[in-house]
């Protein structure tokens, strides 16, 4: 698989098949399968709090992978990912309630609708790069956000839109425990699809566009086409993630899809590792768990006598917000290649233990 790091010595690949494999060893393949099987049992073991955190990881993870395909693999930038996420949520609710298409099909349809919108806003990407593109996509964030507030027919305006729970053959997935399986299914299939995409012709074209667009063009890669396609796929993922979010909550309100969400998606990609599929998931898990674990610390302090006074609770609340920012800065300085890189290093260390160099 394509990674940004150089290969260590002794790591030989003798065929293309070996080079593009998703699971490097049989053990990793078996471990992944075992993990997914174990996750299937999670709703029977873990309480609803953990389940809801996993669901959050799933819908944010799907959307964040889309952004990583755009930013990490194709080298473009988008500051409007949060708005696309919201668009997916509204679109799925709208498709389901007005066209009466079952939710299970409304979710992918919403993905395609978001894809169309994403490609529309990706059009400038054919002509502009870098900071200019960042600003152009920033505009998409605000345009779509404004659209949510105005388009009563689509989003319900200020009163929001309701989203029915997922319903397959009469079985309604309206509890956290049941929705968990929908989320798990979406997460696994979208990540497999993402991994496969990256080792296909299109995926290699994305990486070529990122690494050196001029060389890519000389090699016969249609820059406009692939940049646009990348925007489309990125928006498709955002749309699926958003649709899951909408049907999980049962209600979509225009409040949540601000520029802050877009930046949070970017932060997930950067912390996890740009241009890494599994890194994206790590970044998402990190960003979901960070505020929760900090909240846990605040909660512990509140259990004490000296801690349960407003001065302490409020003070720690500010620290909590600041530390999220601080963690992002620290990552940029000490681990610019993200958690995926750190994971690789830990793996290497143990692989050669105790003779690591």
């Amino acid at each position, binding site marked *: 698989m394509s990674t940004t790091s150089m290969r260590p010595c002794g790591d030989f690949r003798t065929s293309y098949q070996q080079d593009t494999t998703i699971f490097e060893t049989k053990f990793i393949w078996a471990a992944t399968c075992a993990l997914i099987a174990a996750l299937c049992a999670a709703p029977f073991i873990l309480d*609803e709090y953990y389940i809801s955190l996993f669901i959050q990881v799933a819908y944010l993870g799907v959307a964040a992978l889309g952004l990583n395909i755009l930013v990490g693999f194709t080298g473009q930038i988008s500051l409007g990912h949060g708005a696309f996420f919201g668009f997916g949520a509204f679109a799925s609710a709208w498709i389901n309630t007005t066209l009466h298409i079952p939710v299970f099909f409304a979710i992918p349809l919403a993905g395609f609708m978001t894809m169309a919108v994403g490609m529309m806003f990706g059009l400038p990407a054919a002509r502009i790069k870098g900071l200019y593109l960042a600003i152009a996509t920033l505009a998409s964030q605000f345009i779509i956000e404004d659209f949510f507030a105005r388009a009563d027919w689509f989003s319900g305006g200020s*009163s929001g839109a*309701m989203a029915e729970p997922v319903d397959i053959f009469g079985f309604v997935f309206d509890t956290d425990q049941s929705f968990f399986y929908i989320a798990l299914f979406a997460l696994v299939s979208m990540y497999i699809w993402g991994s496969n995409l990256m080792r296909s012709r299109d995926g290699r074209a994305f990486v070529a566009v990122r690494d050196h667009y001029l060389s890519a063009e000389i090699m016969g890669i249609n820059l406009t086409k692939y940049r646009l396609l990348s925007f489309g796929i990125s928006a498709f993922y955002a749309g699926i993630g958003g649709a899951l979010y909408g049907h999980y*909550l049962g*209600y979509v309100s225009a*409040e949540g899809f601000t520029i*802050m969400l877009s930046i949070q998606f970017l932060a997930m990609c950067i912390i996890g590792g740009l241009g890494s599929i599994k890194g994206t998931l790590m970044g998402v898990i990190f960003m*979901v768990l960070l505020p929760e674990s900090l*909240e846990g610390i605040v909660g512990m302090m509140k*259990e004490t006598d000296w801690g349960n006074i407003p001065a302490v609770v409020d003070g720690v609340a500010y620290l909590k917000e600041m530390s999220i920012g601080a963690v992002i800065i620290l990552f940029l300085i000490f681990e610019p290649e993200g958690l995926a890189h750190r994971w690789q290093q830990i793996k290497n260390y143990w692989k050669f233990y105790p003779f690591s160099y």
Partner: protein
Amino acid sequence: MSKSLFRKSSINGAVVVSIACSLSATALAKNSVFVGHLADLSGPTAFVGKYYADGVRDSLAYINANGGIDGTKLEYETIDYAYKVPQAIGAYKKWKSRKKMVAMQGWGTADTEALITFASRDRIPVYSASYSGHLTDPTGKNPKTKKPAPYNFFYGASYSDSCRALVQWANDDWTAKGAKGKPKFTHIGANHPFPNAPKKACAEYAQELGFEVMPAVVVSMKPGDFKAQCLTLKNSHTNYGYIGNLGGSVLSLIKSCNTVGTELQFMSNVWGGDKKIFKAVGAGIKDYIFPAMTPFWNDNVPGMKLVREISKQSDSSGNKERTHHYARGVCSVFFMKEAMVWAKHNGGITGENVKKGMYAVKDWEPKGLEGVCLPATWTPTDHRGINTVNIYKGNYNGGDIKIERVSQVTLKRRDDWLGY
């Protein structure tokens, strides 16, 4: 605090926590119920969120210190979710699955709306400070209601009803002034769910009363230079402008409009007018009209005594002047508390019974808060607790801010206004 002391106390803290955790199972089995409290202390709505949160928090502490719910201890936890939906969901799920939450005190539009479905499925009453009209139709009686919210309650008139009351006041004001012609009304606010909530409902009522409704003027929620918008207001000769925003944005709007020299009468929503804003704007604020659901700190009403007692929970000196947002938080908790007391004597404190308890009394004033909380009536088909709006006028008055009540408007409980 010195470093070593901090370390020591945090170790002590950890020990206490582990003991508390092991005891919590037995504590739950004892006589207590849990109430979750979501607050925005550090996010974008913290400007007013912290005052409201203080009111809720102090009231919960006060109730506990004074016998709880008729002897049942009230456990509670305040979580600052910084106006982020995922964190609000996380907190809700944690409370629901681990603490067996029976009711929740929420905050803004974002968290309240994200939790509507969960709350009604889990049968947990949610008391919010989001006064959107569409939360008031619990059964979906009005065909316009998109999503019935059977477990959502709030203390106060909805944004739409407050705005209608202001429009009614404006109508009276126009006649009292003896002005001729049709008065012009403009909605001023950001294009976001919160300022937009009453936009349509209010414009319709204004039209009904014979106002000429002008196109809405969009003003960002973030403070800025709003002279262009003020010029629009000036050129359109608007007479009455409804401000949908809050905090710094209102401040900049008034300052910008003073520079431009508009002559319209500002009327704000319930979050857009308090002493802090008047102090910040300074001499520029003149005859600023805003609604309030509670009297002010220095008003002489019997219930204020209890509010001052409650305030001592976090301010032992008792000198801190609280805003009317604080008092609204107090009312929200005390209505919940009395519904819990009712529930306790009618089958036990569960979310479902607390909801029933909300319907038990008509024209209901929580004990000890007479004159502070307006008499409220909730029914199974109508969650418009309050349909009376007190309208106040604020003046800077050379630093000695003067707030006086100019009118009390009681709106009809019209069926077509339910949930809208």
